[in-house]
């Protein structure tokens, strides 16, 4: 058994992919918890689709693709905010408009440049974790460290802001900067995750671990920690499944995390469909 698990690790590419998978599983779960509690899951989807033109342009001009993707992700959130504040269009419609436009531009640009640059659109859409380089492992580690430090350092402010933005603003917290900081964290996380699962499936790693944990525990930091554990377990198991059964890695990871979510949905002690009926009657608090 142990030998079976160790066997893939003799390959350098498997070591690198596993490190990336673990980092991404951890990072997405922590940052994605903020998206879930603010009911902004669609925003994660919007940013992840919107990074594509940034990637393409970075390739064309030979810049760092992380930087390109990050800039495009931030531009998309600014475009969404602009439409929302300057017109009667609601936020969800604004997101739909902006991310599909960015995505279409990205697909077009990548299709145009992929012949001459030996790149593959599919790798951006669905990830290509087995091809990660040492440099990419380094970049992802740096991003993960920065994001986690910021989340810990601003934990109490972000808790207040995401729970009660008006109350936080009235208390004098700089809510616009906190919101923009949160958007930066989300964009950084998505950029760091592109290689592992691609821009289409990253939403699963952002939302599902936190949502699973939310069914099991009751405080934000518990959601983040348990979510991170779920994310990391899913990433590792997904990689092994992918190695032994020759499955695409990104989708394998997503299927594992989705499976864990279904288990929690059915059997969570507090909210499970099969298990929470005793709790429901006990929840009748009056007074």
């Amino acid at each position, binding site marked *: 058994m142990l030998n079976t698990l160790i066997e893939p690790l003799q390959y350098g590419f498997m070591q690198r992919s596993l490190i990336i998978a673990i980092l991404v599983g951890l990072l997405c779960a922590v940052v994605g918890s903020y998206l879930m509690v603010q009911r902004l899951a669609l925003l994660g989807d919007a940013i992840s689709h919107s990074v594509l033109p940034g990637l393409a342009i970075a390739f064309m001009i030979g810049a760092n693709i992380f930087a390109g993707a990050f800039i495009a992700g931030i531009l998309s959130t600014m475009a969404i905010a602009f439409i929302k504040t300057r017109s009667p269009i609601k936020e969800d419609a604004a997101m739909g408009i902006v991310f599909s436009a960015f995505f279409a531009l990205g697909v077009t640009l990548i299709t145009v440049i992929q012949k001459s640059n030996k790149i593959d659109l599919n790798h951006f859409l669905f990830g290509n974790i087995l091809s990660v380089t040492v440099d990419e492992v380094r970049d992802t580690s740096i991003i993960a460290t920065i994001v986690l430090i910021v989340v810990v350092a601003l934990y109490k*402010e972000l*808790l207040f802001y995401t729970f009660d933005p*008006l*109350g936080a603003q009235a*208390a004098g917290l700089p809510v616009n900067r906190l919101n923009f900081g949160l958007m930066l964290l989300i964009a950084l996380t998505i950029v760091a995750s592109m290689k592992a699962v691609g821009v289409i499936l990253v939403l699963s790693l952002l939302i599902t671990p936190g949502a699973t944990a*939310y069914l099991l525990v009751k405080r934000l930091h518990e959601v983040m920690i348990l979510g991170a554990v779920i994310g990391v377990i899913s990433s590792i198991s997904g990689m092994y499944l992918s190695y032994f059964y020759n499955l695409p890695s990104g989708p394998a990871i997503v299927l594992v995390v989705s499976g864990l979510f279904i288990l929690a949905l059915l059997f969570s002690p507090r909210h499970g469909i099969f298990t929470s009926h005793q709790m429901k009657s006990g929840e009748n*608090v*009056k007074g």
Partner: protein
Amino acid sequence: MQNISFYEKFSPLRIQVEETPTQARKSTDMNSTAAINISHLGVHYRTQKALGDVNCIIKSGKVTGIFGPNGAGKSTLMKAILGLVPISSGQVLYKNQPLMQQLDQVAYVPQRSQIDWNYPATVWDVVMMGRVRKTGWLRSFSTVSRQVVKEALERVGMKELQNRPIGELSGGQQQRVFLARALTQQAEIFCFDEPFLGIDQKTQTIIFEIFHELAAENKTLLVVNHDLGQSTAHFDDLILLNCELIATGSRQEVLTEENLHRAYNGKVMYFAA
């Protein structure tokens, strides 16, 4: 018909009001000073006027109620005072300085319906938020803060439920959690948006007790209220709104038939009397 029944219902309150000894009122007036000065405050949502040219004074040591019909801009006025919505004109001064620059003096409790109560947080977590600003960036909560939170939870009768997820509380309990959070902010100005909506009698009693205690400590209290019923007697001063200022001053000065008629356009109001 409806108007008649409204005034009839109202008259006992007015009689009671007129019976209040003027001497006693004067003595409380001595302690209170104009804390917040609002001049020419206006708010527009896009092109529509939500609130026009409000001028009034809010005194410290008093419980001031913002009253008016639905859509009169009561919550908007409170948010505009605190700078939570962009204002199109005017200014709000606290002790002769812009209030916006002194938000650390403010404890604001939003409407309960504006909050997602399924947020993964316990009673303790929410009340602790009141200490975020006092604690400062990059610091963790001090022992003093924990003590302040414990005392506030005891004061509102929520100490036993401190580890309960906020989603498993009743409406009244949720409101008391917010009241406790406001208390931990140790503010000078307390603003409550519709604190009496959908709560039980016990909670209402606790809230009014605490309001009067805070007023006695010369704090400034501003409360948006939807209900012109019996509870009106708990307010010292009133601001009567209907998209513009109808009347402001002591409860007795504001609650006249003419003012109420103007505020409510002669339409029926609901009484909890």
